[in-house]
């Protein structure tokens, strides 16, 4: 679409930059802490009766000394690389499984009219309503005691995928609803099977939605720590968030290590988002296939 008047969006940029800076302020603190080489958050050092600028300098998140010591320590002290890899595998599998199951279910909810449809949708929503804090022991009974899936990737993947499915189903159903039904009708007339339609028409059209649900599923598995530490029985099978938690909790908290670890752990998410961005933008809009 050709914009008739090319604006330079000056004010938009100004406000976006301001907002981004504000939004990133806590992130800067995390970064500053991670590069400080220290374990505690730096305090604002002010003289008596500080002036405006002295205060301003005080609140800027810059470490007094730059050092990558925290990063080196985090990476070498424990098998952090291995844990990161475990996390990648578990989260990737969760994403695949979760999005696949959610796509099929959401497609049915969007395109078929069948008894139990509303109840089914409500069931998925309902599953999000029971507070998770008391779920640990029943989940342990199912996964570790009954299914004997303790200390395996698959045990965690199953739990994470089912945790993310309700969201994915609800979101995808919403998106599928916006895709006009006449596209499918004409395909059916052309003799295409349901599966072909689902695979060749609906999924490509729903790319932005799938990208978002994929990101969501990935995040669900990526940051979870308590189930991962309870289900895994050997250090080699831990995930990155479990590794991170070693630095805090109990008596001592090495926040510098934790910050450095957090930054490392966040990088794959950022990378994934960069990858998914292009689907967010170039997801074929309904208009182009009309």
């Amino acid at each position: 679409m050709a914009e008739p008047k090319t604006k330079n969006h000056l004010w938009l940029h100004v406000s976006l930059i301001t907002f981004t800076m504000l939004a990133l302020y806590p992130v800067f603190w995390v970064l500053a802490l991670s590069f400080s080489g220290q374990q505690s958050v730096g305090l604002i050092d002010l003289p008596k009766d500080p002036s405006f600028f002295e205060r301003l300098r005080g609140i800027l998140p810059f470490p007094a000394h730059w050092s990558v010591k925290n990063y080196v320590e985090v990476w070498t002290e424990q098998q952090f690389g291995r844990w990161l890899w475990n996390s990648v595998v578990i989260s990737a599998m969760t994403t695949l499984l979760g999005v696949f199951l959610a796509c099929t279910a959401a497609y049915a909810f969007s395109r078929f009219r069948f008894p139990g449809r509303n109840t089914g949708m409500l069931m998925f929503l309902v599953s999000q309503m029971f507070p998770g804090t008391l779920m640990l022991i029943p989940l342990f009974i199912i996964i570790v005691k009954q299914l004997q899936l303790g200390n395996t990737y698959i045990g965690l993947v199953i739990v994470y995928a089912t945790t993310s499915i309700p969201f994915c189903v609800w979101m995808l159903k919403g998106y599928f609803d916006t895709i006009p039904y006449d596209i499918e009708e004409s395909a059916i007339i052309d003799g295409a099977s349901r599966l072909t339609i689902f695979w060749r028409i609906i999924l490509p059209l729903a790319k932005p939605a799938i990208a978002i649900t994929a990101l969501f599923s990935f995040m669900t598995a990526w940051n979870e720590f308590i189930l991962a530490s309870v289900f895994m029985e050997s250090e080699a099978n831990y995930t990155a968030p479990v590794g991170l938690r070693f630095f805090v909790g109990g008596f001592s908290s090495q926040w510098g290590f934790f910050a450095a670890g957090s930054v490392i752990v966040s990088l794959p998410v950022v990378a994934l988002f960069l990858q998914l961005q292009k689907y967010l933008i170039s997801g074929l809009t309904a208009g182009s296939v009309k």
Partner: protein
Amino acid sequence: MNLAEHLKRSAVLGLGFSMLLSLVLGTWMFRAEENDLRLQQRQRLAVLRANALVLAVADTDAAATRSRVQEMQELNPQIESVIIVAGTQLLASTRAEDGAPRALKREEKPLYDLSNLIRTARETNRGEEVVRKKTVQIEETTRGHLVVTLPYLSGGEYAGILQMKFNTAGADTLGDKADSIALPLWMLLAALLAGTFLRLHPEKKIDLSKLIAIGVFLLIALLYQQQRIERLEQIEVQDNQSVAADYLALAQQYDRLGILSLARDPASVNRWDTDQYQRPLGLIGADGRISTEGQARQFAKRAGLFKPILWAINLLTAAVLLMFIYGYAARGYAAFRKNIDAYIYVAPAMIGMLVLVFFPFAYGIALSFTDTTLYNESLPFQDRLIGFENFRHILGDFNVYQHTPDGISWNYQNFYWTLMVTVMWTVTNVTIGVSVGFLLAMALNTDGLRGKAVYRVLLILPWAIPNYITALVWRGMFHPQFGVINQVLQMFGMEPVAWFDGVFSAFFTGVATNGWLSFPFMMVVILGALQSIPKDMYEAAEVEGASRWQRLRFITLPLLKPTLIPAIVLSVVWTFNMFNIIFLVSGGEPGGANEILVTKAYKIAFENYQYAYAAAYSTVIFMILLVYGFFQTRITKATESF
């Protein structure tokens, strides 16, 4: 008329199915009750003997104890063996090969531990002035063979444990002539017969045949249950009689031997027939007479447990019957056949959910009807059942505020206060999340805006970094003296705020943190939805002279709705249960005023160890959200287009 047609038109399927279900469930429940009664009876007989034995050796020296125990065992063949353990010593044993007295062997550690356990139980019951720990331990090794362990006293003081192996073979009063299967079978047959001759008219709301079907069903079901209840009562009466007989025989034996002079006047309490806390049951008097009030009490207690279950069974099976005779079952089956495709698509996700979400769920709800705490976790489930007590306690406590001389003082521990905070918390957060996310998405969706990709990536960072550390940073930012926010306030000449001291300012800290964490998600979702709106719609609108506002109002918002509504519904549910932020940032300060329902449930479970009460709290949270979800989907369904 052929058979298939007949099956369809008559009530035989409906009556058959519901009757079968009712009888199977009923029989199963009564069987369980009966088995439980029998077990109790065996335990009671064993405990009676053991109590008597302990009393008989209470005031004797070690040698006399040994010989007396030996004597009693020889006189009573039901007693297989008796040992007495004191500390690490095996003080007495009726088995010669044990070679008592001697020190305990390495593999006899469980005896030593058991002795400590029972001593602790006794001390705890006394020290806390609350009877909550069993001082009698019973184990049934094989059916009829029981091992009873209880405190061995010397001069009224705890001196060790006495363990008795007891054989109760033949103690079952009704023997193993367990209820025959014939009766329920005849009843089922009767129901089937009745069903065959009833012609249904599914299209009519009420007709005679339906009424008759329901009548027949209820009649048979209730008759059967009444018969079973009477049988249970009969067993209890017989049990009491046999215990009384046993008691009298034993007492005479004691009298004869001159071991123990029993006060057998009707006024004194029977100290032999006790429960596992060594409290007299009050069913049999010291003179061996059966107490009718005690018996009635005993039965009322048992009925209190199984009556609700019977009601549930009756309701369920009646519902099955109605489904059949009103034709829902047939229609449901037809619909299932017709929509098999859709069910196949949904099945994988649904099965996963059923196993991993609804089981824990059922576990939690079942827990909420008990009084489970850390201290009684190991008791059997039915001993912990208390019905709706927890819910009554949570919902029925209206002590939300008090009038004090300084005005109204709120009771922050009250459920309704927490509920109000939670609702405010949810509404504020979702509003902030959606509006900030929407504004940013709109801004980032502007055509020709440079650096979109950079903004997008930077703005999801709050979501990407583990919230555990950002929550800490936010907490630090609100520190009254060293926090950034107060520094900024002072930069502009304002007074610093003590953020965690006031109810509202502490609430604000949570909202700020959570808003910051949740806007990226909303932004991404809305951005995705905006992408799926065809651009030519805007062009067409622009050509027709629609203003910016009109385009937003009539194109963007309606087209965002299908994705925005689910996102809002879900984020309401999540925010309602957002544990981390409250827990990590304000910790519910000041004084628990900013606790939300989930953090409260967590504290009840893991600080106060009242697991069942916490489960009830969680169930209430669930019910509130369920009602919300129900109405929300009702409203959206009305506007849903296809």
